[in-house]
């Protein structure tokens, strides 16, 4: 009967499934176009031969991508930059969040509030002077410089997220540790961090994905092929005024895989990490 509990639940479930299906189609349709184009030959991509699925599937776009473009170099660079940024973000953010939540010192409240505001500084405004700073440090056109620039937005966000998480861990744990002869740093590493694996995973995930996908800074600060990352290297397939659609779509497909993999692996941590982190922040 419609009015019963299970009846309502079933309607909810069905409605939910319909909505889910719509969302999945909406999400996947453009991706389908991308993936199918990556397997099509040129005559099927343009003009009269246009098709919704590849009639003569080919791997030549991928072959072109690997053999005739520096895609693998870009991939390697993106990996390096993203991993190092992630590592350093986690380290700096853990130390900072611990300090803010566990230690008493003048300026604590100001820093806690100010940290969030630095995160909100628009990249589009900062990139011009940031270039001068990197020049001054002789870090322009280097991956190190890019990592430094990325830390500017990953560290505040990660610190803030970890702050929320650390606040939910009772200080009794710390005190117990210190009574047992642990230093503060030891408390951080031996007691708190193991409990905060979900938060660390979340923080690592965001740092990785934000670095992997970042375009503006990378395009302004990097100019040599040897150091370029994927988001900036790929548009240079646009050789003057003709598009390179097949290999471009192939590269888009491949470039989405690492963040996807990280997400898939860290999924269960993310929920917990975001919940306590963001919700309590």
């Amino acid at each position: 009967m419609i009015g019963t509990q299970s009846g309502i639940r079933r309607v909810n479930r069905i409605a939910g499934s319909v909505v889910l299906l719509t969302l999945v189609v909406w999400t996947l349709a453009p991706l389908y176009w991308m993936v199918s184009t990556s397997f099509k030959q040129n005559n099927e991509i343009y003009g009269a031969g246009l098709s919704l699925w590849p009639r003569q599937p080919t791997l030549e776009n991928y072959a072109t991508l690997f053999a005739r473009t520096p895609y693998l170099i870009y991939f390697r660079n993106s990996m390096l930059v993203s991993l190092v940024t992630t590592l350093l973000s986690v380290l700096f953010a853990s130390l900072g969040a611990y300090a803010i939540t566990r230690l008493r010192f003048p300026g604590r409240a100001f820093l806690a509030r100010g940290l969030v505001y630095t995160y909100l500084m628009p990249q589009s405004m900062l990139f011009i002077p940031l270039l001068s700073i990197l020049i001054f440090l002789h870090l322009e056109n280097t991956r190190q410089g890019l990592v430094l620039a990325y830390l500017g937005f990953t560290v505040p966000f990660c610190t803030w997220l970890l702050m929320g998480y650390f606040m939910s861990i009772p200080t009794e744990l710390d005190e117990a540790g210190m009574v047992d002869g642990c230093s503060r740093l030891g408390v951080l590493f031996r007691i708190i961090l193991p409990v905060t694996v979900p938060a660390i995973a979340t923080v690592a995930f965001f740092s990785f994905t934000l670095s992997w996908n970042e375009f503006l800074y990378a395009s302004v600060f990097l100019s040599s092929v040897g150091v370029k990352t994927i988001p900036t290297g790929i548009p240079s397939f646009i050789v003057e005024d003709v598009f390179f659609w097949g290999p471009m779509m192939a590269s888009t497909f491949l470039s989405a895989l690492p963040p996807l993999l990280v997400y898939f692996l860290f999924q269960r941590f993310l929920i917990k990490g975001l919940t306590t982190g963001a919700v309590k922040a």
Partner: protein
Amino acid sequence: MAGRQVTRRTVLKAGVSAAAVAATGTIFPPRKTSAARAQKLVFWMQPLFNPRADEIMVGQVRDYAKQAGLKDNEVEIQTVPGGEVAKKLAAALEVGAPPDVTRMNEEDLTRMIAQKQFLPLNEIVQEMRKAPGGVNENVLALAEDGGNYYGAPFGLNPQAGHVRLDLFEKAGYSSFPDTWEKFIEAGQKITQPPIYAYGMALGMTPSDSLADLLSVVWPYGGALVDKSNKPALNSPGTVKAFQLVDDMFTKYKIIPRGVLSWDNSGNNKAYQGGQVAYILNPPSVYSSLVKDKSPLLDKTGLFPAPGGPTGRVKNGYTDYWSVFKQAPSPEIAKGLVAYLMEPKRYNELIIGADGRYLPVYPKLAEDPFWSSKPALKGLIQIADGAISTYWPGKPNQPLAEIVDQCTIIKWVQKMLVDRMPAAEAVGKAQEEMVAIFKRYGQPV
């Protein structure tokens, strides 16, 4: 006692973490503070659309490097697509590290000359003049400032009308119409969506859009500036031309609606995809058709744009080699330009580019390559007597900005989208040109 033990361990741990942070720093040591870079020659290679031509050019640069005694790691060839050059130069100039040698279009050349960024290339130009048949003097004039030449002309880009002769034939026109009125007539017969007659570039990207616009403005007597290089856009001819563009887009609908957001590849894609019957573009499209062995190749003819009351106008722009004054080894950098422009070697590249560029040495136009196909003959004819975007004036900084920021195209879009009357749009465009000239302190 326990307290002191904790203390030492704390110190140890603090020290270890400090060392860890420092160690991370040493994994990435900042470069040494030396002004000199390792490379003696940095060349920004702007792809020519044709992999064979690109290979030839890179090969020539490397040969030169070897000849000049440079080791492999002393030469850096960076591939920079033409559309990215302005942005990369902005960053590079701020760093104080522009490339040594690269190709400049007319606008960037003008701007950089005004900012005094280049080394004079007078000896190279003299050498070029000594070649049999000399060098194209018209294009040389644009690179001159205060008696010195700051650019060595590299190649002419004629704006070639790429025409689908088969589509025109089907509509009953045995050859490409020579006036805009006839073209509009033909266009209406040809246009049956999704096929359109005119892939007119009207997007906010410098280069293609302005060329298309001017190809209508000039035959009606309009121009950007007058002979004394003052803004002269506002004229009855220009207004008539703007009105024609509006008619083509709005009344006769022979232009696809999407052109307003095209980038420089928009008209290429439309033509190569068989969607339009006519585009105006440098021969890069033709080059691509050849490279792809496209079925459209045989159906394509190359013609100047249609004409009007003041005649039929041929348009072209020139690219130049320039050497930045920050080059640490100026003789090596200049030597590269001289090497690349040596007539026989230069001809190799021009022919390898399959019509992408026309030679700056008039004598090379007699090479049998240019009569091997009727389309190529058409190209040579377009180059003959081609005027530049700035005719009858010369490029200067305000004009370079006007071109780069698509100032005029902006008003065309306002006419088409906001339904601003043609006369008002032209008037406003002229006003803005004058304002920009005044900002640079140029006479109006």
